[in-house]
């Protein structure tokens, strides 16, 4: 039984499930590292998922879909940035409003353009990497490694590159230092000549772009369709991954993989254990709560996270 669950396909699907969580979670890292809470990731993801399928279907080019999703994520990020950075509104309220807006606008536009709330993607990205060798052509281990790591949607590889770049940018460049400083102690950063508002805008727009990309993967690559509320709380699970990953790219990726593993396992167990499917569906959410509770005390958010910056005028 063990072998039938934990085979190469299982780990490959764990990775695929983890990708949107990791991307959105990284969005959360950027935003919160700069001092802006972003509850709106869920809505940005949902809008990205819709836009991606819609744009890909209209242009018959999946890359246009991916690009459009990133773009719409940036637009929603801009709305969040304007309300919460420029107007210093409550960041959670702004995020909630973005989620409400996303739920409404995606269904509204689905009706308007497609006359239904489930839209099949007419085109998909090609598979990149090494083709899977036939059974017996190579050794089982090599075949498994190819299935798990080297045979995926381009977005999987792009995600890995993004994470490497994000880690490098945040922790090894002056830009990253400035970004983290405005999230820890904006007054000091301001005194040192860092433009707090600008840094926060960049971070929030980046988080929108990443959430949009996550949404694109969800609809275009994972489901091959868009349906209303397809994001299903993943934006919030991504936030849980971010917290569990202590607000670092590497940690967030690890936590996202843990969630991917949990969800893939719950899908596998459906056919094996005599548990009603509704209880299996609860697993990712229960796991998120459990992970949050266990992260407490170890995970410390950026000091100025969630606090609008008031420039002292004097």
């Amino acid at each position, binding site marked *: 039984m063990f072998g039938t669950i934990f085979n190469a396909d299982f780990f490959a699907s764990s990775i695929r499930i983890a990708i949107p969580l990791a991307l959105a979670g990284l969005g959360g890292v950027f935003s919160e590292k700069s001092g802006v809470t972003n509850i709106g990731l869920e809505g940005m993801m949902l809008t990205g998922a819709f836009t991606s399928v819609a744009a890909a279907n209209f242009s018959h080019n999946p890359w246009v879909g991916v690009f459009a999703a990133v773009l719409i994520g940036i637009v929603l990020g801009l709305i969040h940035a304007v309300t919460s950075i420029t107007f210093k509104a*409550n960041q959670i309220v702004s995020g909630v409003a973005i989620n*409400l807006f996303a739920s*409404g606008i995606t269904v509204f536009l689905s009706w308007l353009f497609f006359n239904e709330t489930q839209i099949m993607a007419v085109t998909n990205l090609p598979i990149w990497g090494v083709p899977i060798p036939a059974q017996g052509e190579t050794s089982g281990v090599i075949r498994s490694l190819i299935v798990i790591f080297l045979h995926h949607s381009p977005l999987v590889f792009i995600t890995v590159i993004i994470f490497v770049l994000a880690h490098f940018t945040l922790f090894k460049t002056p830009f990253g230092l400035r970004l983290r400083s405005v999230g820890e102690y904006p007054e000091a950063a301001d005194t040192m000549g860092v433009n707090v508002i600008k840094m926060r805008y960049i971070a929030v727009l980046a988080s929108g772009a990443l959430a949009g990309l996550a949404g694109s993967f969800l609809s275009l690559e994972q489901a091959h369709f868009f349906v209303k509320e397809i994001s299903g709380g993943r934006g919030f699970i991504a936030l849980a991954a971010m917290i569990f990953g202590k607000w670092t790219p590497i940690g967030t990726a690890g936590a996202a993989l843990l969630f991917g593993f949990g969800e893939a396992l719950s899908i596998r167990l459906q056919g094996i254990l005599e548990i009603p499917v509704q209880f299996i569906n609860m697993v990712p959410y229960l796991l998120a709560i459990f992970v949050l509770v266990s992260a407490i005390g170890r995970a410390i958010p950026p000091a100025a996270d969630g606090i609008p910056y008031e420039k002292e005028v004097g």
Partner: protein
Amino acid sequence: MKSKNRINFYSLLEKITPLIAVIFALLVGAGVILIIGEDPIFVYKVLFSNALSNRDGWGNVLFRATPLIFTGLAVAFAFRCGLFNIGGEGQMYIGTFLATWVGFTFTNLHAFILIPLCILAAAAGGALWAAVPGILKAKTGVHEVIVTIMMNWIASSLTFFLVLKFKAPPTEAMVAAGVKQMIPHTRQIAEAARLPRIYHILKSLNIDFPSYNQVNISFFIAIAAAILVYYILWKTNLGYEIRAVGHSPLAAEYGGISVARNIILAMVISGALAGLVATNEVMGFKYRWRQELFTGYGFNGIAVALLGKNHPLGVVLAAILFGVLNYGGAIVNIFTGGRIPRELIMVLQAVIVIFVVISDEVVKRIIRKRRKIS
């Protein structure tokens, strides 16, 4: 004398910011309607005239406002304690299911016992579901926003499991036609558990009112809940403590108020309010449980609370406005033959929230600037 007038003007301005936000949102909505090639003036005319020009319209508006009053109060109450209860949706699922279960299980009880019992079950179910994020927040500090959202999804799965377990037997007509229930729903609750419709009351007073109108006694329960929330928050020790924690947890703790205790209590009361949606949707309308009945009320409650500035009176007014938009939006959808999807209303509601937040800040800035000048 003049400066006093000016202060009054600004405090008035502060109070009517939601109104300004609504007007701006309607303008944005008009833009959207224009973009999709329809006439905004016609659309708004259909929307408001159908909702407000006759008793049937008003009945429909109040019927749609009632659940939003409950969920709006739920969000507002928690907010006064500094908590963001985004879990109204899940708390509502559990509370309404428990009330329905009581309603179709204890069928031999008298209405005088069964109705209060159902209401109690609704509140208890919501309170129980809200207690989890409350306790986790109070004891471990886990942010309530993420936990309440997770609890929403868990509640959705759990009630889906329960509704299949307590699924109504197929009716004779369905057996004859060989069809299954498309959307699973439970058995009906007992006659004794049902709340009377307003129509019955108005008929006995000889006031003309359509018999098919669904507005029921639950509206008055919602108003009573709003008054109770006002009383608790501003006239009791508990309310004082909850508001103190909401204002500054550190100061409250220093003043000898238990932050943990008040966080849990605020969440529990908030959840109970969300559960009371059962009185309108189950006890006053469908008499059974079906998930589609409730979807969205929890989230719209957030918008209602924000628009109502987290004050019970504001919540009631905001809920009625949303009732107008929801009912009018449905009519517009029919009137235009589906060319204007009713989700336009959802978009409008979200835009209202964003504008409320922004206009609050703008007004605050204007006032600050004026104070500095004077």
